């Protein structure tokens, strides 16, 4: 019954177009922020060292960009490394590719 009353009360609410009517001046004060550093290094997985991934991947983005991904194949991860290198100019040492991929799929 309470639910019905709530619903009927809501039905009485106005549904007309509500036009905005504010006029905020442009900001004039300097804004300073400090970004948190809440993520650390990638951990070892099943005995596979994260050293190559940590050395090559975390300069441009924090660790969660990697750990948040769905399960990707070695081929998909290799495509990602290629994209980071060719599109974003990531200085990933080609000699490290295999070690990075070993860690990415050790999951």
């Amino acid at each position, binding site marked *: 019954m309470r639910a019905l009353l709530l619903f009927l009360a809501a039905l009485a609410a106005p549904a007309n177009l509500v036009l905005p009517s504010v006029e*905020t001046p442009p900001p004039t004060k300097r804004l300073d922020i400090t*970004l948190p550093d809440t993520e650390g290094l990638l951990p070892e997985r099943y005995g596979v060292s994260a050293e190559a991934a940590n050395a090559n991947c975390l300069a441009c983005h924090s660790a969660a960009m990697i750990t948040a991904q769905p399960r990707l194949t070695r081929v998909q991860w290799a495509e990602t490394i290629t994209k980071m290198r060719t599109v974003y100019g990531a200085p990933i040492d080609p000699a490290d590719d295999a070690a990075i991929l070993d860690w990415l799929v050790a999951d």
Partner: protein
Amino acid sequence: MLTRRTLIASALAAPAAAQTMVDLGFADNGMRTTTRDFPQKGEMILQRSSPPLLETPLSVFDAHDFTPNEQFFVRWHYPFPTSIDPAAHRLSVMGHVAKPLSLSLADLARLPRVAVAAVNQCAGNGRGLFNPRVPGAQWGNGAMGNALWEGVRLKDVLALAGVKAGAVAVRCAGLDAPLTESAPDYAKALPIDHALGEEPIIAWAMNGQPLPLLNGFPLRLVVPGWYSTWWVKMLDSIEVLARPDEGFWMAKAYLQPANPLADVSPASPAGDRVPVTVMRPRAFVTNLTNGARLPPDPFTIIRGIALGGDHGVTSVELSADNGASWLTTRLGPDHGRFAFRRFLGVLHLPRGRHAVIARARNAAGVEQPLRQNWNPSGYNRAGVEPVQVEIA
């Protein structure tokens, strides 16, 4: 689902402070922690610290038609300045114009002021829910928000500079910059017809306050009805182009299959692609979480929000029988065609499990499909979002 890898992910993201785990409902690896560590931000779902990706919890949409600035989602591709003096900020207008300009915020404020309520939604909102999964920022459905944006029309700024005949696009860029020299600077080139239209604005205020730094202080482009990839933050450069922008962010990124739903079969070749632009109607149930257990009640209240894309929401309907029958809902206050529209309805749900579906339709007659669309970039998610509930 809590797995070893999600535990590792959460441990990585874990500062000493108290935090909440959130299940974004992905098939795998969907647990995230919340964070209160970001400046000018309240509790947000942490997707990535650097460059920040912060998602708005669903409960925020249940409580507000206008998403509070401190819980508005955050998405950066590249590093950006963390100290900005708006008095020193200049917006350059250059390229294929009669008179190049360098405008202060005070200069802009002399133009006619406009205000628009509009939803800002990431093209990849809901990407983590794609099946099969695709790489990229793994958003739930909280990479969106509705705000009242205030500023001046882009076309009025362009008129000050005088767009020359033959202009085809207007490239907008901000203060964010990649770390490496060869990476492409983030820039988006609006088609000239859209740039000279009534809708795009250069905004300095969001819900009556200056933009939070993480949302683009001191100026950002607002392109109502279009995905947020176009809403360039920390805007400092407008370049009128006499030929199409072939840069990475126009020619290679933020492209979708060339059909309105951006829908392809996972097995098929990609085919022709076009830039993501206009958003589609979407409805979200906000008062029930997936998997909720509710007591029997003759009337189960279903509440949520909807967006219409580039046309206003005209209806939201509910179904608890996979779309065999639909019940209309009552729509809340109309804040304009680009804004969130609240809906409220009741369902009579007998004991047992139910999938509650909300379906939005807009003024152009576009309706949410029951089946999800799919593409390899995870853009333009458009189908209904069923919520599983159990009456027990």
